């Protein structure tokens, strides 16, 4: 026994495991389903040969502990991804503190106030956990109670991992198409802006079917206001734990195989070298934000709020109407002032709260980007305006609207956006020229009419993302140009005034692990919204618009 101690057994096991991986890798012909290689492990189904069986049972959540074994300072190996994702998330990304927030001072105070509204314990209540931690359906065998503590961890966005946990570590994984990774292994294709938007918006806008709804009760008890959501810039603010294709391809300049693999992925996503992924995110996000908001209000009106795992308390499953949280907060929540800028909005019935305006802010630009010319864009915008008006109509006719009147116009609006805008957006390439045009279109949207605080932020975030990407792509061509400096200065001012950074970054890795929004920050945030002056914003963007014009000449 002495000659063969325990650790020897372990190393033997490790060696045979590696050998086994190699065998699997060697056996796999190109682009074959990985699951075929695992045929022995998988229960046989009636799937066609060459195809993996579709997921017959839902994958389960395992928690991020397993991910952290590899995706954390895994230096010295050449991966297409960074392999430091877990640390970026844990140290810099506030999502990792989503659950801890429920237990900090504000969380405790909210929990006390919510008791009178039927919340026993916010650290276990599904209505809170649905967004504040990452498991939705079921916990898998590898997950324990500690999984909660992870907050919004890997699987919240990448999908429950029980079916890809092991599989995605194998070299053969490269041969699985993006579509199959998602449909057969449950790994969501978050490189696709549409999928990513869906994932983000399910919490950041809300998803009634998944039980992710921030209610007015929660706000009144102290939940910080959800900011409006702009996909492009928000991904930058996380901060990113991934590289765009452009950078990945650069990293593997000399590795033809890997380049081929990456280019293939790029192709599957409908992108190529000239594509600016930021612009694409902004535009696809714009449409999805509108769609998801309309769907949320329609689902709430239809009573479709579902709270997973809450069967024992059926009362909690019911939807309320009106749910104040679904209306535009600042339409009611503003100090009264006369004269005030709100009276200058002429398009709405005075005194009737409508659904939030901000999801519409960027749709016009998305339409511009997918239309052949101005005339076509004008027509499409008119159609969109009409559909929006139809959705607003029940809210104007009757305070809070009759919920029976909402599903139909919401459905029509969502379908129109899907067919007429999202489909062409997905196949468009979005190169530098498109970005240049988008900058002008964003400026026009920001200056043409009076917009509210949240819409102003949408426009500013989108501009920031597109402009920075444009600058990078043109490799600082405009440097030294006074127009570029004007844009930088004005944009910096807008960033401060509208608080576009939202305290999202921790400035240093050691900048405390608790990232609860401090009271001062929250106060500053709500004050920024309250003190917003639309004319001032318009003036800033007019200056930017002029500079963009000069820059492009």
């Amino acid at each position: 026994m002495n000659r063969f101690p325990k650790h020897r057994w372990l190393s033997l096991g490790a060696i045979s495991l590696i050998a086994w991986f190699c065998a699997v890798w060697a056996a796999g012909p190109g682009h074959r389903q990985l699951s075929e290689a695992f045929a022995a492990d998988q229960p046989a189904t009636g799937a066609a040969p060459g195809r993996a069986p579709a997921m017959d049972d839902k994958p389960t959540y395992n928690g991020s502990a397993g991910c952290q074994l590899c995706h954390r300072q895994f230096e010295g190996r050449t991966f297409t991804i960074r392999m430091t994702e877990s640390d970026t998330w844990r140290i810099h990304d506030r999502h990792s503190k989503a659950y801890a927030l429920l237990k900090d001072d504000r969380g405790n105070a909210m929990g006390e106030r919510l008791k009178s509204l039927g919340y026993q314990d916010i650290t276990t209540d599904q209505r809170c956990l649905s967004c504040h931690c990452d498991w939705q359906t079921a916990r898998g065998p590898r997950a324990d109670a500690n999984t909660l503590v992870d907050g919004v961890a890997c699987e919240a966005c990448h999908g429950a991992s029980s079916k890809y946990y092991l599989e995605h570590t194998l070299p053969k994984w490269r041969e699985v198409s993006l579509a199959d990774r998602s449909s057969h292994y449950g790994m969501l294709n978050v490189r696709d802006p549409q999928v990513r938007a869906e994932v983000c918006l399910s919490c950041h806008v809300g998803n009634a079917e998944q039980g992710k709804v921030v209610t007015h009760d929660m706000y009144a008890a102290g939940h910080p206001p959800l900011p409006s959501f702009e996909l492009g810039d928000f991904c930058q603010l996380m901060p990113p734990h991934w590289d765009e294709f452009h950078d990945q391809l650069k990293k593997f300049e000399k590795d033809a195989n890997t380049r081929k693999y990456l280019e293939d992925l790029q192709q599957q996503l409908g992108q190529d070298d000239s594509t600016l992924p930021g612009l694409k995110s902004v535009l696809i996000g714009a449409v999805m934000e509108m769609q998801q908001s309309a769907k949320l209000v329609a689902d709430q009106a239809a009573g479709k709020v579902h709270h997973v795992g809450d069967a024992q308390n059926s009362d909690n499953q019911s939807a309320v109407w009106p749910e104040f949280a679904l209306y535009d907060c600042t339409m009611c929540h503003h100090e009264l002032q006369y004269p005030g800028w709100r009276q200058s909005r002429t398009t709405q019935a005075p005194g009737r709260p409508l659904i939030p305006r901000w999801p519409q802010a960027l749709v016009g630009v998305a339409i511009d980007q997918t239309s052949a010319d101005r005339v076509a864009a004008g027509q499409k915008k008119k159609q969109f305006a009409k559909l929006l008006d139809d959705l607003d109509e029940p809210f104007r006719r009757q305070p809070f609207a009759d919920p029976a009147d909402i599903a139909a116009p919401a459905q029509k609006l969502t379908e129109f956006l899907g067919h007429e805008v999202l489909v062409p957006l997905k196949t468009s390439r979005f190169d530098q020229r498109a970005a240049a045009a988008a900058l002008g279109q964003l400026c026009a949207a920001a200056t043409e009419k009076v917009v509210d605080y949240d819409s102003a932020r949408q426009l500013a975030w989108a501009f920031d993302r597109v402009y920075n990407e444009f600058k990078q792509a043109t490799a600082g061509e405009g440097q030294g140009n006074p127009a570029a400096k004007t844009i930088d200065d004005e944009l910096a001012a807008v960033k401060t005034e509208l608080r576009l950074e939202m305290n999202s970054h921790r400035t240093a890795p050691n900048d405390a692990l608790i990232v609860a929004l401090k009271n001062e920050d929250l106060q500053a945030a709500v004050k920024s919204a309250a003190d917003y002056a639309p004319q001032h914003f318009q003036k800033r963007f007019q200056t930017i618009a002029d500079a963009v014009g000069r820059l492009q000449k």
Partner: protein
Amino acid sequence: MQFRREIARLFRIMAVVAIVSTIGAAAAYLMAAAPRAAEEPRGPEVIPGPPRAIQSAPAAPRYVGAGSCAARACHGNPNLTPGQEWNSSYAVWVENDPHARAYNVLFTTESTNMAAALGIGDPWKADRCLSCHSMPVSGARAADTLGEVSTLRADGVSCEVCHGPAENYLVAHTIRAWLPKVKSDPHFGMTNTADIAVRAQLCANCHVGQPGPDGKPWRDVNHDLIAAGHPRLSFELSAFMATVPPHWSTSTEKPGKDPERFNEVRSWVDGQFFSAAAALKVLQARANAAAEKTNKAVVWPEFAEYDCYACHHDLNAPSWRQQTTAAVHHQPGRTEWGSWYYGGLETLAGTELLPAQSREKLQEDLKSLRGALEALLQTKTSSEHQFPGGRTDAAGQVAKETAAALAELDACRHAVDDSLASRTVGPNKLSSELVQSLRKRFEQHAPANWDGYAQYYLALVAINRDRALESAKPGATKIPPGPADGILNDIRNLLSFSRMSKQTGDQLPQLANSANAASLAATDASLRVLRPGVNSPQSFDPTQMRLHEMFQRAFQQLSTSSTPL
């Protein structure tokens, strides 16, 4: 001799004539005087009245317009003479009273913007505006006038809006001897504005609202109108009466003749009742219309029924609203119904002016009505997916409960009337009783919102003013001038609306009808909390101990100064 005899005869005849005529004159005098002496016990039918021809005028008299009152010899004397105020009442109204500009204000930019936002065309032609901003002769009521409709409208809220359509009394009331008859006989259509109850209802018709003859809201400043830019109505009779430039004699007012001037406190009490009654009638009309679902123009649920500042505040964190949710008996995120009219009434109902039984009954009715109205805005709909605010049965329920509350309100008012009459409390006694009652109520049940505090404040101001007026009367015990003035002023500052623009920090411009604001300021600075149309009360925070302490001190000062009386 013969001549002398003739002269003596002549003298005798003259003496006889003189005696006879003296006796005759005396008899005539006595005969003339006799019925006058008998007037009191014999009742009103002997009051000399105008001829039959005048009395047989139309049963529903029509409006004639303020022009008929404006002659210099009648009510239009520009030189106000003490004791002859009636002679200048038109002049005072046309010069100083904001009511005279009620119609003109419809032509300002603010008004046209408002009408454009509401999509109701020209505000000076819209029935919705004219129902309060002019004599009510618009739309279906165009036939209610003898004169040109346009002329009558241009007068704004003129004499006849309050004193009644003058067709039947215009000639008759100019003969002094006929005046008592004209005033007392309803046939003449002259409103008895000296009666505080009548006056309270008159003011409330516009300043609170009124359903039309069809039972639908007619004079109605609802949330749509407020959102379009109309100032919110927050009516309190004693405060409003103190701000109207008086066009009647205040110096010759005697107890019983003009109870409002003579008793500010009574005016506060009746104002609470009649404002709440008017508000309940409008609510009933709204609920009925919503239950019938016939009138699409009626808004339901109506936001103006609820506390404005429950929603209308900038978001803040941490906020006093979150600290006090337990203390104010409201769950987070809910708004309170009827914070202005019924809040004041509940305060009154909590005092000992009401007999204990009526007090409990009224409080119960209001509580149940409050429950029904607050449920309209948020109810679980898992079973039927139907909006409670849009449900006709819910509206019908509110209508029914409103009717019950109205009946109870009326009973309570009579109970207060009887209780005050039977005890024959003097004015000072009444005000010190009210201070004690309000204080007790305040300590047990401090208000939770601006409306609640403002109502308490206005009650204290009425009491303070009452004191000052009483002590100014000849022979009254002098009270040191305004012992509570300072503290009331401090409270006012905490309750006042900011006049700064939030975005720029500049002073906000005055509203176009700033005559209104100016006259408010000139008349009584203590009422400035009611100045409408600008910011919310931003410095208001009921958890601030300072506010609570200030009220305690005001109660203290008003109680001590009332004890020696």
